[in-house]
C-alpha cells in the first residue's frame, strides 16, 4: 500500500521518464517517430507473406487477423526484452539517488504502451479503409483488455529487469524466450489447430487469452467471452503482484550490484 502511495508521489518522474524515452527513442534517425509504425508494418508484411502466401491457410483477411494480434504482442515482447535492461541502463540514477525503483520498469512499460496506442490508430485506419467494419460495443471493452495486458507486461518487466541486474545474460536469453513465446501464442495461426491434449497447458500462457480477446473484439467484432477476460485478468494480477514482490526483494542490493 505504501508502495502505491509513494509511486503516486513520484508520478511526475514516471511522466518525465516516459516523455524522455518516447522523445529520445528515435532521436537522430531520419524517419524519427515514423519508425514506431514502420517496424510493425514490415513485420506484418513478412508474416503475411510467409503464413498466408507460402504456408497456405484459409483464414479470411489474414493480414487483419494477424495485425490485431501482432501489435499487442510487440508491446508485450518489447516490454520484457528491452525492459529487462531498463534498470541497468539507468544505473547512474539508481546508484546516486533514491526514488522508488519501480518507477523505472513502470515508465519503460508505459512508454511501450503509448507506442502500442499509437499503432492502434493504424489498426483502426486499416479496419476502416478495408471496410472490415467495427462493433462499437465490443470496442468499448478494448481498454479493459489493454489494461490487463499492461498489468501482465509490467509484472513480467519487473521480474526481468530486477533479475537482469544480478544476471546480465537474462537480457539475451529473453530474446530467445520471447521468440519461442510468440509461437506458443496464437498470433500467426489459429488456436483451433492446437492439439486438444495440449490445450490446458497452452491456456496457462497468459498471453493466449489476452490475444484471444483482442482478436474477438477487432477481428470477429464480438464482445469477448467474460470468462476468457477474467482468466486473463486473474493471471495478469497474479503476475503483477508476484513481480512486485520479487522486485522489492531484489531491489535492495541494486546499488551494490550495478
Amino acid at each position, binding site marked *: 500500500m505504501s508502495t502505491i502511495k509513494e509511486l503516486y508521489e513520484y508520478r511526475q*518522474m514516471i511522466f518525465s521518464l516516459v516523455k524522455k524515452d518516447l522523445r529520445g527513442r528515435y532521436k537522430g534517425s531520419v524517419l524519427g517517430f515514423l519508425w514506431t509504425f514502420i517496424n510493425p508494418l514490415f513485420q506484418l508484411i513478412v508474416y503475411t507473406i510467409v503464413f498466408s502466401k507460402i504456408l497456405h491457410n484459409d483464414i479470411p483477411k489474414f493480414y487483419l487477423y494477424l495485425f490485431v494480434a501482432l501489435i499487442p504482442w510487440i508491446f508485450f515482447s518489447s516490454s520484457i526484452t528491452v525492459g529487462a535492461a531498463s534498470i541497468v541502463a539507468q544505473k547512474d540514477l539508481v546508484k546516486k539517488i533514491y526514488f522508488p525503483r519501480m518507477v523505472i520498469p513502470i515508465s519503460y512499460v508505459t512508454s511501450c504502451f503509448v507506442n502500442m496506442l499509437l499503432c492502434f490508430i493504424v489498426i483502426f485506419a486499416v479496419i476502416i479503409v478495408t471496410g472490415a467494419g467495427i462493433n462499437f460495443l465490443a470496442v468499448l471493452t478494448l481498454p479493459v483488455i489493454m489494461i490487463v495486458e499492461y498489468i501482465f507486461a509490467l509484472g513480467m518487466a519487473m521480474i526481468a529487469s530486477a533479475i537482469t541486474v544480478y544476471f546480465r545474460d537474462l537480457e539475451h536469453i529473453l530474446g530467445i524466450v520471447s521468440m519461442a513465446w510468440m509461437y506458443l501464442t496464437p498470433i500467426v495461426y489459429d488456436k483451433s489447430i492446437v492439439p486438444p491434449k495440449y490445450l490446458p497447458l497452452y491456456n496457462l500462457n497468459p498471453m493466449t487469452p489476452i490475444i484471444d480477446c483482442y482478436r474477438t473484439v477487432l477481428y470477429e467484432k464480438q464482445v469477448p467471452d467474460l470468462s476468457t477476460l477474467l482468466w486473463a485478468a486473474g493471471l495478469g494480477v497474479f503476475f503483477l503482484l508476484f513481480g512486485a514482490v520479487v522486485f522489492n526483494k531484489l531491489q535492495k*542490493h541494486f546499488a551494490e550490484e550495478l
Partner: protein
Amino acid sequence: MAENENVIEVRDVTKSFKVYLDKGSQLKERLLFRKRSRYEERRVLRGISFEVKKGEAIGLIGHNGCGKSTTLKLLTRIMYPDSGTIKMRGRVSSLIELGAGFHPDMSGRENIYTNAAIFGLNKKEIDSRIQSIIEFSELADFIDNPVRTYSSGMYMRLAFSVAINVDADILLIDEILAVGDANFQSKCFNKLREIKAQGTTIVIVSHSLGQIEQICDRSIWIHEGLIKAEGPPKEIDLEYLDYMSRKMQDSSRGTDGNTGAESSDEEQSRRWGSGEARIKSIRSFSADGTEQNVFRTGEDIKLTVEYNVKTPVPDAVMGFGVFDMNGIQCYGTNTRIDKLPEFTLGESGTAELILRNVQLIAGEYNIDLAIEKGEGIPVDYFRSAYKIQILSSYGDAGIARIDHTWDLQR
C-alpha cells in the same frame, strides 16, 4: 509533527560489502569459474544506533573508510542495511550526487523539471518553486540554453538550487559545500541555516570540521564501523583531531625522510651551498616536549636542528622559511633579520628554534632551513628540509590565520 520527535531513528545497523576478487556476472563465468568468484566480506558498519530530532543538524565525522558515507547512503535508501532498522519520517532530499539525471541536451529549465521530479515533486509543486530555483542559481540568463553549454560551476549551481528548494523534511549532505565560488558557497551556507531554522533536519558528512561546527548541533564520530563518540561538535571535533594527530604521528614516524640524512640524490637536488657546515638532522617537538610533527593551529612548535661543521664558519646566519603545498611562502626570516648578533659556527652542535602560537591554517607545510655566511652566501641551503602538518577545527582560508574578534552589537 511535534517538536522533539525523532525524525531519524537508526537502530543497530550493520552493513557489509562483498568485495569480489574476480567477479563474473555472466552465465558462462558463473558456471565455469565458480571458484573464481570468491569474495571478501568487508564489514563497514558494525552496529550503529543514533537518532536525530526534528530540526536538529548533525555532522558525521571520521577518517576515510570509517563508514560515514555508507551511513549516509543507508539514510538515503540507495542501499539497505544487512540488519537493524532505519526509520525516516518525511520527505528526504539529498545533496549527495548533485545533478543526477541531468540531460545535457535539455535546457536548464527542462532539467529543473526532471531533476525535481526525481526528488518526488509533482508538476504543480515544481511550478511553484521554479522561480526561486532559477533565482537562487543566478542562471536566469542561461536557463533556456542546453545544460551542455554550462560551465561546471553553473551546472553545480543549478543542481544545488534544485536540491535545496525541494522543501525536504530531511536534508542529507555529503561533502558538497565545496560547490562553486566563495560567493555562492556562502549563499549556500546561509540557505542551509535558513532551512534549518525552518525546522528541516540536516545530516552532513564532511571532512571540514569547520563547516560542521558552523551548522551542526551535534557531531557523531564514526570509527571502524562503530560510533566512537557523540556530542557537541566543538568537543567531539577536538577529540577527533587529537586522535588523528596521534595516529598520523605513529604512521609518519620513521617512514618519510623527514630527518635530513645526507644521502639521496633527490635530496641533493634540494640543497646547495659551499658545505663548510651541514644540517644533519631536524626534529620537532610540542610545547610539552613530545616529539611530533602534527600540530594544531595556535600551538607552539619547537624545532631542533643538529649540524656538523667541517671548517668553522665566521659571520654565520641561520634562517628558515615556511611554505604551503602550493609553494607559497607563508613566513621566512633569519638571525640577521631578527637582529641577533653574528656568530661563528665553530664546531658541530644543535640549534633550537621555537615557533610560538603558530597561526597557520590546516594543511601540510614544508620548512626550508639554511646556514649562510657573510652577505648571504649559502653554506647549506636545504629546501623542503622538514615537513609538518597543521590540523585545525576552523574552516578558514588563506595563508595564515589573522587573530580576530567580531563585534556585531553596534
